[in-house]
């Protein structure tokens, strides 16, 4: 009687799997690479309590307490007072673009009012699109208010150290006043879903041709690589658009994400983003030898996309090298565009830079795809 389970057969099976694994180098690399990647990303790159956030100070007081305050902000390591802005308009503009995370306005006469014990108001404006990015800094700010100017409270003013803070901190959260993280996550999700599905679908559809032998026929027909690429990509643009419509509808009517800016702008930039992802998928299909490899490449691309684009974790919480990787990922730019338009009401001029980056990525990736696509079976 043959046993239902045989240890010998099992070992033979394991042996065979090892042999196959050794032959399939990319899979092997991926199996090692993905855990490594996750370790690196979760272990070092992710910082949900970002520091060194770009801050501008609008000092209308020019008094001693203002300077003490700036020093205290810097000492906390949460704030990088990088530049002085000259007008409120300029600061607002920089906040909208995302160049600044905070703006501190020191009102005129601040030092004098503190000295008088008037408890003047200090206005801090925060880009709170992503609540996680600012919460740590804002908490510190509260403590800071208590002690920031203590060293300067000498002599008669020493009495102010006790009791309520010498000035009143007024924090103004911009763009996502209620700190609803869904407002931040849902628009981001649109980019994430598109990344996964668009890249995977094209990568698979082209490798499938190769695997089934139909590519040989395509190549013998009078079709150029670009024709094949565009032909493969176009149907998926529609699929992608359907996804955009569904997610937009859900974010507006299910999650009640505010639509501060122009919906049309989101719809238009989505096309660019979808095509960029399809081009990435097509490039993958020129690298992968079969559908399994195509799927693995997609996953390999997807991981950094969600982790380093500012979707999952605040962009500013990442070290410089991670931010550099983030800059070359289309999702990073699309995420900024969608969040910017929906939550901050960004207009065309605010997002032009990000749109330009998307277009550049699309161009580079398409060139690689068309160049790599082989017209022969060599």
């Amino acid at each position: 009687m043959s046993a239902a389970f045989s240890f010998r057969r099992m070992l033979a099976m394991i042996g065979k799997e090892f042999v196959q694994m050794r032959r399939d180098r990319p899979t092997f690399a991926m199996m090692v690479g993905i855990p490594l990647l996750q370790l690196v990303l979760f272990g070092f790159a992710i910082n949900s309590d970002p520091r060194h956030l770009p801050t501008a100070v609008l000092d209308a007081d020019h008094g001693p307490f203002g300077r003490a305050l700036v020093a205290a902000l810097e000492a906390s390591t949460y704030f990088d007072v990088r530049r002085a802005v000259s007008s409120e308009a300029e600061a607002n503009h920089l906040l909208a673009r995302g160049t600044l995370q905070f703006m501190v306005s020191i009102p005129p006469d601040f030092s004098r009012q503190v000295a008088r014990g008037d408890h003047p108001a200090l206005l801090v404006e925060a880009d709170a699109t992503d609540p996680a990015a600012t919460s740590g800094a804002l908490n510190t700010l509260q403590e800071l208010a208590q002690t920031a100017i203590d060293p300067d409270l000498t002599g008669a003013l020493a009495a102010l150290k006790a009791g309520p803070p010498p000035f009143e901190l007024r924090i103004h959260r911009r763009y996502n006043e209620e700190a609803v993280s869904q407002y931040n996550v849902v628009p981001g999700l649109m980019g994430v879903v598109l990344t996964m599905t668009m890249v995977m679908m094209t990568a698979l559809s082209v490798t499938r041709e190769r695997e089934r032998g139909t590519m040989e026929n395509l190549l013998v027909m009078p079709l150029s690589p670009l024709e094949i690429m565009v032909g493969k990509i176009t149907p998926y643009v529609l699929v992608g658009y359907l996804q955009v419509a569904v997610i937009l509808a859900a974010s507006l009517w299910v999650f009640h994400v505010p639509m501060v800016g122009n919906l049309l702008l989101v719809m238009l930039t989505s096309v660019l983003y979808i095509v960029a992802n399809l081009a990435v998928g097509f490039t993958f299909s020129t690298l992968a030898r079969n559908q399994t490899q195509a799927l693995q490449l997609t996953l390999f691309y997807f991981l950094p996309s969600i982790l380093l684009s500012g979707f999952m974790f605040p962009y500013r919480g990442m070290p410089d090298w991670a931010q550099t990787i983030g800059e070359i990922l289309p999702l990073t730019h699309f995420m900024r565009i969608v969040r910017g338009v929906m939550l901050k009401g960004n207009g065309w001029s605010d997002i032009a830079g990000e749109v330009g980056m998307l277009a550049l990525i699309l161009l580079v990736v398409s060139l690689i795809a068309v160049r790599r696509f082989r017209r022969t079976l060599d």
Partner: protein
Amino acid sequence: MTAPVIAVRGLTKRFGGRTVVDRLSLAVEPGRIMGFLGPNGSGKTTTIRMLCGLLTPDEGEGTCLGLDIRRDAAAIKRQVGYMTQKFSYYEDMSVEENLAFVARVYGLPGARARVAAALERLGLADRRRQLAGELSGGWKQRLALAASVLHEPRLLLLDEPTAGVDPKARREFWEQIHQLADEGITVLVSTHYMDEAERCHQIAYIAYGQLLVEGTVAEVVASAGLATYTASARAPQASVVELARRLQGRPGIDLLAPFGAALHVGGGDAALLEQTLAAVRADPDFAWQRDEPSLEDVFIHLMGRSRDNFQGAGT
């Protein structure tokens, strides 16, 4: 005298250092059917792919339809019909959709009428809406042929088109091939079937990437210089297998093949073969008869010889 449709010299292809096609030269006249024969892995598919520009030869040169195979690959592709060894149309598309796709890619005028005509001519009209993946082997092959001649190519490259197809479908397929040749299309067809080889105007036999013989069937048979005999069992106790064992490895014996109650014996050196057979011919259990070698005898003989050469060269 018309120029040959295929004229290549010294065609060589290597994959990772291994020579798969070795200095192959071939010439095919217009309107001819050239049979391309050789064991599996001998380089038939690779040669065909080089002819239609799907692979770039490492060495060698030549023309296909008067166009340079290196420079004018794109132009060649447009005038060549290529039927791949593996079915390469879309199994998840209907017969008609596949044909329509091809017609559109080639930008054929009157695509709709052309597709309808092709469906009619090949008896596929009733199955036009059936998915290609649901067709049997014979019907798939008809579809593939219909699709590869849709753009009216002047040269048809068929890579083992009848593998796994039943005899009736094969016969009908060959009728179509002859019909096409009659219309002036030149055909290069690879096959393993001897009866198909005998239907060709001309055959070429390759092994290990080298062209061993080329010519008409009669020329190829004659050039092998093979002498063959058939020994038929006279008595029920006479064992053909036992006779084969007695002859195995003896001088002059290159070919031994039992056919039921008969044994086919052959050798390249007629005198030596005669000498060896003289001893066993006294056996009254078998009747001996000299006969004409078949094409199959010739190929099996060639295959054995080329293997010896190849191994000799390799070591």
